[in-house]
């Protein structure tokens, strides 16, 4: 028991094999895949009375895919916990094939018996140290650190294991920016940039500087809309999917069905690259969802340095699809609430000149990206009156 609570790999894998044996016994002759997750997270939060509270979260869960003989989508079910009765329940549910892992690829065969993708076996900082950190840093609303271990066992008995150490921080500067990072390094250092100019009322800035958290939301939305097309996107936007990126919060050396991964371009030579779903790019939103084709760590390459002059700095940006092809950016500057908005045809957005400022960093909204400088006019920027 001690090994599981300490996220000790040997104990976890041994138990995962027991669970898969339970599933296989339950299902009979069908092929069974087990996905199990165990995590330990700690979050220190400044509450409404400015006291700091601690939340210590121990989560576990498992999922089962049952593959039929005819190549149809696998049956799927999931449950919290890693007890044997949960394993039997998910196996029973998955073998009815009511829940189908539609879009899911078949499981791989002919793979090495064991594969590993492990962050260091670092201990989580203590609750006391996290509380002290939030108390010291008045500009921090909360800090969360966590380790997650995921184990995938295929029907041929191969096993893949991933361990991730991640950290998140929410600043209390009113901008709502969540910073994220692989590893447990101190996130509390605030590297406030100098780009904070807000034009006086009645003046619409000529350019937008999107902080990584905002550019992440924009690029993610553009990619999800266009990565299946081969339309033009403008040479300034250079995006790759790099599953095994060392700073990426998602992804890894193998995907969530066990296939080996490799980097692939999302844009190339000014065009969106048509997306080919298949081995190496299927991912689970959580253990509760079957693996489906998608991207993992989007990386926006730094472009030419740009001047930002008369700009509006955007720290958070909400992208709303409207109908088939119209999106709206709901811009928050953290200074007086939303004062500007933009309505844009995504084809126009993607054609906007895009340059960059500063280094690329991981964001909680997805991509690893730098600050983006976007032409406000092409984005349809206007002041709310």
């Amino acid at each position, binding site marked *: 028991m001690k090994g599981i609570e300490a996220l000790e790999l040997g104990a976890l894998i041994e138990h995962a094999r027991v669970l898969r044996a339970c599933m296989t016994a339950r299902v009979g002759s069908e092929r069974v895949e087990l996905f199990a997750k165990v995590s330990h997270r700690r979050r220190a939060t400044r*509450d*409404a009375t400015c006291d700091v509270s601690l939340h210590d979260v121990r989560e576990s869960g498992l999922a089962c895919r049952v593959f039929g003989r005819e190549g149809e989508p696998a049956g799927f079910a999931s449950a919290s*916990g890693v007890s044997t*009765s949960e394993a039997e329940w998910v196996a029973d549910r998955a073998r009815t094939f009511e*829940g189908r892992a539609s879009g899911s690829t078949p499981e791989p065969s002919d793979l090495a018996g064991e594969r590993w993708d492990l962050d260091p076996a670092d201990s989580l900082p203590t609750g006391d140290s996290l509380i002290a950190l939030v108390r010291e840093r008045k500009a921090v609303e909360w800090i969360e650190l966590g380790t997650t271990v995921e184990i995938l066992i295929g029907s041929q008995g191969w096993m893949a294991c991933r361990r991730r150490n991640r950290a998140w921080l929410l600043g209390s500067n009113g901008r709502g920016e969540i910073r994220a990072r692989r590893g447990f390094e101190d996130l509390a250092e605030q590297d406030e940039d100098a780009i904070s100019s807000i034009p006086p009322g009645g003046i619409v800035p000529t350019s937008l500087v999107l902080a990584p958290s905002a550019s992440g939301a924009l690029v993610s939305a553009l990619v999800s809309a266009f990565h299946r097309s081969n339309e033009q996107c403008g040479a300034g936007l250079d995006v790759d999917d790099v599953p095994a990126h060392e700073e990426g919060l998602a992804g890894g050396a193998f995907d969530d069905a066990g296939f080996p991964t490799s980097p692939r371009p999302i844009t190339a030579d000014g065009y969106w690259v048509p997306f080919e779903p298949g081995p190496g790019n299927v991912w689970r939103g959580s253990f509760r969802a079957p693996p489906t084709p998608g991207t993992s760590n989007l990386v926006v390459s730094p472009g030419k340095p740009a001047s930002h002059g008369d700009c509006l700095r955007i720290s958070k940006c909400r992208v709303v699809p409207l109908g088939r092809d119209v999106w709206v950016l709901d811009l928050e500057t953290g200074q007086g*609430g939303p004062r500007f*908005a933009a309505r844009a045809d995504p084809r126009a957005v993607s054609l906007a000149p895009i340059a960059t400022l500063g280094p690329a960093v991981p964001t909680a909204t997805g991509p690893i990206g730098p600050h983006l400088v976007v032409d406000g006019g092409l984005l349809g920027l206007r002041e709310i009156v």
Partner: protein
Amino acid sequence: MSPDPPDSIDAESVAIAEAATLLPRGDQRAHIFLEARVDARLDLDSEGGRNYVETRTRGVAIAGPRSLHVTDPDPRELPALVRGAEPSPRRDVSRHPPLSLRTRERPAWRGRWSARIVQFDQKIWVGREEGVVFDRRRSCRLSVRVGTQPEARDELELALDPDDPRWPTLPDPQERPLASPPRGPFVGVFAPGAAGVMAHELFGHAREGDVALRRETWIASVDTTPGVPLTVIDAPARGRAGWRFDDEGTPSRSVVLIDQGSPAGLLLDRACASALRTESTGHGRRSSYMDPIRPRMGCTYIEQGHDDPDEVLSGTRDGVYLRRLSAGHTDPVTGRATFVVTDAARIVNGSIDQTFAPFVIMLDGRDVWHSIDAVARDLRFDSSVGSCIRDGQPLAVSVGGPTIRIGLVKVLA
């Protein structure tokens, strides 16, 4: 809302009651929360597609200044966890309450359609030093897209009775061309139910206790005018996923947030109530056993007035009739909120005219406050249903409202 008694009171309640005696005395935050929950999603379409995915969840939160959140612990382990022992995932037999969700047969709708049902059934037990309470929350939400047009105005959302297997009747798809969205500010007449989304975003979020404690909201500085025909209420026990007890074990009660144009009550959990030296209103909720408690809305609605809804419409010479608002987003400090309008039509001389393509509006709370001039007597709930996401925690909420007219609605896009 189903007031069913717990079906395993001997196991969960006894274990929690014993462990709750070990909680620190006098700390309002201290409690033990156990949930057992089933979630399901059913996708269907007119081409014969069918997919049903079910997942179940069980976990405990031992809450206080230092909270512990654990998946599926052995109930016998709870006293040790309260004393500070290290938890461990359970390896052997776990016992879930026998929750099951109804799967439905295919509806007999004509034409082309796709539908999704999202439902959950959650049982909770909350233990405090004064005892254990039980509650059950259930919800079944249907969204249907009909016709061949991609625009979201062809989408229908409804709350269904989880115990009633019948399907609703679908409206015939409208294949008319859509007009370009309005360009400037307009007079808005909100259809019954549609203004509930606005009440949730503009008034509800600004009256959540932790928001109001942390910073001054726009309502705190509003120039109140007696006689404004606006009353906003949050009633947690009402609506599609209501609760009798909140996730801290406090009995829920209705709170009047805005009373005839004057700011009134706040939505409080125990921590906020303690800070304000008052009682919790039973609005402390968490998205799951893994999350911290926050004061949250349940069923937020605008109280109906006395106006005749037909007269509100016929008395509007030039405006926009808003039937459905979907995504909403608000800043409780500035009082500005944005909404995607997915079904709206022009009003010409008191009659409904051409339907608009989807567009985005911005409502300023002060504008609503000072320009609302008609509140009809046709209160309706849950014509738009969805989840409210705050601090990363989604919760099923209900909204409601009568036909209302607002003099200043701004168009963003």
